[in-house]
């Protein structure tokens, strides 16, 4: 299998006032294409910082990230945005759907941002069918349950065939039943589309659904 993500000696230090606060202290990580990886660890250990670095939302203080053959850390801000648009899909704990748009509107927005107006209705339909959202397309987020909202967010993340889905505690705001359903969807995406997924979670049951689990502590992978 090909390497889809490689992080080398990744460091990130935040400047808070006059104090340097290290969040990541040298992370090395390799993720294979089609891998479903869980990242666990206590709050403040650097999980989210690592995810934001991998998604190009932050730049590292030191180190390198290569995604699908492209060096994210050497890229300019606009180039990072371009890589993010083409290769990354985000899923957040708080769903982060656009409240004024319907579920379909949220998906189409992602398609427009990705493809300069070119949309793939077949792919959209396939994703919606798989995530069992076909009858929810004309609902706005506030008209959907938490589980349904997260499934829409998941559909939005994968509709453009990203190389990697980065999920930041996607079941953190869901009850047990919806958590299980969303995790099942993640697994199906991974199985059917060989979708690479890196998922931060505090939930051992969620982590158990993954093929590999890495533990973080104090900015290190342990």
């Amino acid at each position, binding site marked *: 299998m090909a390497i889809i993500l490689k992080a080398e000696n990744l460091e990130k230090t935040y400047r808070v006032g006059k104090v340097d606060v290290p969040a990541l202290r040298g992370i090395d990580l390799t993720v294979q294409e089609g891998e479903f990886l869980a990242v666990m660890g206590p709050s403040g250990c650097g999980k989210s910082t690592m995810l934001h670095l991998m998604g190009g939302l*932050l730049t590292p203080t030191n180190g390198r990230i290569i995604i699908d053959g492209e060096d994210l850390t050497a890229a300019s801000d606009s180039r990072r*945005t*371009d890589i993010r*648009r083409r290769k990354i899909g*985000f899923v957040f704990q708080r769903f982060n759907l*656009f*409240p*004024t748009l319907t579920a379909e*509107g949220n998906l189409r927005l992602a398609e427009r941002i990705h493809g300069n107006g070119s949309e793939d209705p077949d792919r959209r339909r396939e994703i919606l069918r798989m995530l069992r959202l076909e009858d929810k397309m004309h609902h*706005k987020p506030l008209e959907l349950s938490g589980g349904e909202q997260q499934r829409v967010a998941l559909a939005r993340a994968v509709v453009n065939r990203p190389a990697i889905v980065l999920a930041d505690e996607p079941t953190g705001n869901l009850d047990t039943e919806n958590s299980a359903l969303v995790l099942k969807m993640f697994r199906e995406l991974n199985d059917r589309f060989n979708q690479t997924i890196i998922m931060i979670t505090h939930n051992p049951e969620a982590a158990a659904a993954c093929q590999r689990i890495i533990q973080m502590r104090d900015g290190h992978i342990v």
Partner: protein
Amino acid sequence: MDNLVISNIRQRPLRSAISVLGVALGVTLVMLFTGLSRGMSDDLQRRSSNVRAEIIFTRQGSFTGTTTANLSTKYVDLLKNVEGVESVVPVIRHFYASGVWGVDQVEGVDWDSFAQMSNVRLVQGRGPKAFNEIVIDETKASRNHPVGSSVKLYGDRDFKVVGIYAPESGARAKLTLEAMQTFLEAPGKCSYILIKCKNPADQIAVAKRINDQLPGNKVQLTADFFPSIENSIPGLAIFMRVLVVLAAVVSALVVMLAMHTTITERTREIGILKAMGASRRYIISEIEREALAISFMGLLVGFALAALAGFGIHKATGLIFEFGGWWALTAAIIGLAGGALGALYPAARAANLDPVTALAYE
């Protein structure tokens, strides 16, 4: 709903409506002021152009913007004897305090001579004969002044409408020259004398002859005597341009404030857009499209408000409001450009937001 711009506008209807009204205010101001100015100017031009005389003879230094009856009517016979002159009509133009706008005007003429020279005709009634009789044009008559009704001039003095004429020419009300001379205590005087040439093409030569034979007076061509208001009032053009700039500033400020608030409220959504890979250009264009949509609605509302206000002003005061194509285009450009420029700073601010900070925004 899958359009972020429209859904955002619909999400906050009150704020959107206020933004639209802000732009509309600027557009209305431009359209109303320029429409009224143009309406009054064109009205004066139209009425002046119906004075068929080619030459106007006045005393040197007299000013036609106020009542001046300082020209002796003895010039009437002298002018008739100048080669190339067909007919002459002495006129007193009198300005008096009246109505909402403070000033109105009435002319004293020999009706038959004036009607023949200016090619106006009575559509109802007859010409004025007695001192308390007037004829009015159709515009004035349409404001509830039929033949037989009375009109107050010079404050409380009642005049009886004995005729209605068309087309409009000069002041909207006319009484006899003798009556006007009596009221102004200016017997044998007039404000100016209208001169009709036998051959209009010779008007310059005739004017020169009059000047040579009757020196010390002012001989003007009618075309120069009745310039447009826009050209004759010093600074009006500058005033209009200042008004346009102010309207643009108002539109830009309103849109900027609205979009600034919008951006602050939607910080988190901008973070999501960034996480989805939206470029700065995309984010700016989304915000600009929203501002342009608001501005476009403001334009439509502004045009409608201006038309309504113009109609209301015309009904209430008789002032004429004219939609000018050029000024409508100008108002459209400043409305849209003001909105686009006003949104530029909030849009740039949004595009430069740090995505992680924006995503964490509560």
